[in-house]
């Protein structure tokens, strides 16, 4: 089940419906709406999902100047949205995000002057925070910027594999024109010398996060950690 994580109008240039339509045509199983917190879009999730036959995940990418503000935003959005990401790329925000079990995804941790080390990765793994392995700059820049992005992706890949930390893969499109099919993204991965499974796992991880969170938000959970009914696994 491969998912595309996208920015929609007003954060991007296409509506949720147009991205859902294009993603469905392109063979994606789901679409994660990851608009920044200050550019959310208003849409009818269920109706769009039904019309285009694709899962639509209500997400948000929190962008804040400092961790204390970000922390407030995480609290606000956590109960209302299926997927909560934090806009990374700054050492302080990266550290904040990986320490929060309430955060699902740390977006583009190596963008800008962001960096990561083994401590960050281990903390992320402990808290179940997925690091985004973003193909954005590979797909849409060239020259020095792309070389830099490729180097960062390699570093992130090696650390994630070493510590078996969770991650998500995306092309991070902000219009239907920037969207690419899963198959085409796999070919890019192959050209960069990454195994097909690496990209596939990352594209489906979005869906896994969504279904886990939906399950947690469902009536089966009385409160965090307490599930209604018998636990069949422990018997």
């Amino acid at each position, binding site marked *: 089940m491969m998912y595309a994580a996208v920015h929609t109008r007003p954060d991007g240039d296409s509506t949720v419906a147009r991205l859902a339509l294009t993603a469905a045509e392109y063979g994606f199983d789901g679409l994660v709406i990851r608009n920044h917190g200050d550019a959310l879009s208003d849409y009818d999730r269920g109706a769009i999902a039904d019309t285009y036959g694709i899962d639509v995940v209500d997400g948000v990418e929190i962008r804040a100047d400092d961790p204390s503000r970000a922390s407030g935003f995480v609290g606000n959005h956590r109960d209302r949205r299926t997927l909560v990401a934090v806009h990374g790329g700054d050492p302080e925000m990266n550290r904040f995000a990986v320490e929060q079990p309430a955060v699902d995804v740390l977006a583009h941790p190596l963008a800008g002057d962001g960096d990561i080390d083994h401590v960050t990765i281990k903390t992320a793994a402990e808290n179940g925070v997925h690091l985004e392995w973003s193909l954005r700059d590979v797909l849409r820049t060239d020259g020095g910027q792309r070389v830099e992005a490729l180097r960062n992706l390699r570093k992130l890949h090696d650390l994630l594999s070493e510590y078996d930390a969770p991650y998500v893969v995306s092309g991070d499109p902000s219009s239907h024109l920037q969207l690419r*099919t899963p198959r085409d993204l796999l070919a890019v991965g192959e*050209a960069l010398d990454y195994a097909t499974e690496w990209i596939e796992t990352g594209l489906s991880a979005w869906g896994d996060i969504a279904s886990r969170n939906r399950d947690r938000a469902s009536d089966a959970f009385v409160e965090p950690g307490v599930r209604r009914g018998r636990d069949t696994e422990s018997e």
Partner: protein
Amino acid sequence: MKPLPKHVRQRWRYLAVGIETWPDVTIDRRAFQRHLWFAAQNLLGDVGSAATDLSVMQFGHDEGTGSAIVRTRRGSVSDARAVLTCLSEVDGNPIGLRVRGVSGTVRACEEKYLGGRGEATEHGNVAFEGAERPAISRDSHVDVRVETEFVGATQRDIS
């Protein structure tokens, strides 16, 4: 020179490519070919771009939608696909590309993957985000002009 015997001739693969842009953009074959070569060179370098040996066999693009057939050497299909995936704009205009399928002949490529295209495009005003705006629609895809830019929408978004 004599044509090479069949078993030593180069074998090709043909990629059927779907193209989409904003409706006010027109891309011609030469510009597409040039950018494709740049993209190959940037992604794969001289060695890789010689190995994929991309060329545009057929090209059509009008009112924001089109298709192309791109030839590559057999065995380089994955690299060719990667290059197409990384082609994000032509002459500064964003371009959406998707490989619809791969065939061993141009004819099969056309028949299997590029047939049945060309739904009529309609021009007219639509109600979008609380105002009447000019739009170009094709099937359920609607590109709405909002001030100077286009917005990608669908029939669902307009009322």
